[in-house]
């Protein structure tokens, strides 16, 4: 059954710091779920009269409708004690959960959507980078992605060429490792965890683990929310709503290698909730 593949994956359903003890109704892959915080013990997620498996990680509560054959991924770099971990919160977007992830993997839109913040129109070029599906860990990776950014992070003083690495460890999650202005030997970690509500509606939970002693938490959250709200204006206006997996539907270029690998990986695993398989 093709729908089973995505049921067997883990999804974020809330911030651990903000769970409701009375229970909050939500959706996961179109199915109703209820999320309950607990004064003691683990939070619960209930659906269809049964308790679903839960994991508490990266400041979020995670669950699954099926039976995952592996634990929720880890981000070892994020564990460093000096990092500031930022629960950005939730942004609801009227788009396919897969389109939300694909947009996160894209640097070519920075000059036009995040103008003078993550990109500048005077520096739109995407140089060659490396993309692979790592079979041993079953993840999509893009490395050596370089891009000129006027204000790469809250902690960046001026324009710098930023290096990025992207990782897709689950169908609706992506982690970005990027040059960390105050610590050249480390990477800032910015993650996008997407809760697929329906095929064309999702809750996006951005999360960060940064080396930044200077900025106030509120400013870090505002920065990330500003970026994501700019993305939302794109995501809610793409046609078709669902991510086309038929290569004939859209026209990728060399800058889109990560997106091409992501789409191929989705197709290979039948991760098709939010995808459009044939042109309509």
């Amino acid at each position: 059954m093709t729908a089973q593949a995505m049921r067997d994956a883990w999804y974020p359903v809330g911030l651990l710091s903000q769970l409701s003890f009375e229970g909050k109704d939500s959706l996961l892959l179109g199915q109703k779920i209820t999320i309950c915080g607990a004064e003691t013990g683990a939070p619960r997620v209930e659906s269809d009269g049964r308790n679903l498996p839960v994991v508490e990680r990266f400041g979020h509560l995670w669950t699954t409708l099926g039976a995952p054959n592996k634990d929720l991924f880890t981000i070892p770099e994020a564990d460093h004690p000096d990092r500031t971990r930022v629960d950005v919160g939730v942004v609801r977007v009227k788009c396919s959960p897969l389109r939300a992830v694909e947009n996160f993997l894209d640097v070519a839109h920075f000059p036009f959507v995040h103008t003078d913040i993550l990109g500048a129109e005077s520096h739109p070029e995407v140089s060659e980078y490396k993309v692979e599906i790592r079979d041993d860990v079953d993840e999509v990776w893009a490395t050596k992605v370089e891009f000129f950014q006027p204000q790469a992070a809250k902690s960046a003083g001026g324009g710098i060429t930023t290096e990025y690495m992207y990782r897709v460890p689950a169908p609706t999650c992506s982690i970005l490792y990027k040059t960390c202005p105050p610590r050249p030997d480390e990477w800032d970690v910015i993650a996008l965890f997407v809760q697929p509500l329906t095929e064309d509606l999702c809750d996006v939970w951005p999360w960060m683990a940064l080396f930044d002693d200077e900025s106030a938490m509120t400013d870090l959250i505002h920065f990330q929310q500003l970026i994501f709200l700019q993305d939302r204006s794109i995501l809610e206006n793409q046609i078709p709503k669902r991510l086309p997996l038929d290569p004939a539907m859209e026209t990728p270029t060399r800058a889109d290698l990560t997106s091409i690998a992501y789409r191929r990986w989705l197709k290979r695993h039948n991760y098709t909730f939010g995808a459009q398989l044939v042109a309509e």
Partner: protein
Amino acid sequence: MAAESDARWVPVAISADIMDGTVIPARLPTGRIAVWRSVSGHIYANGDRCPHRGMRLSHGFVRGETLSCIYHGWRFGTDGACQKIPAHPAVAPPKTINCGALPVVEGNGVVWVATQRPSNEPSHIAGFEALRSLVITATPDAITHAFEGKTIVGATKVQLVGHDALLLMNILGPDEVFVIVLIETDLSVSDRLAVSAAVEGLRRAAETTEDAA
């Protein structure tokens, strides 16, 4: 669909609503389009979808005689062909990348678009100009009935607060019609406001008729 039915001019917008250097969304019975006016004042229309990642081109921006997608800045010329992919400045875009330019003309203050170029221009209606546009959620028959209109070739003749007017209809769906109201060019501002208010009332009447049916 028969080519013959495609080769007709459809009223999609009011000329004055599209300033130089801007783009707006509009609709044909066959789908969404982007209508834009270049900086030199020429009008163009094409599909409302960037072939790259499906972003609506009506959210894009106009520079000179080109329309660019807001997502990745892909630039399209007046023939719909992609001229530039900013992520790859040294690469000439393949000729096959095209956002689908459509035939477009202006007359009586109305922008007309066709999916295939008709043999004639839209007929000029001397002494009339566009006042406003609106979408009415009703059938064309219900609209004609509510406005007590008389169907003539290409338009519906009506009387609005004592003034001759014409309705141009772009039938978007079974009960959704984009309407442009033409009035006599010499009407005063207060008369124009009165006609516009009357149209609003008749829209409600047409939509109510539909509900009752």
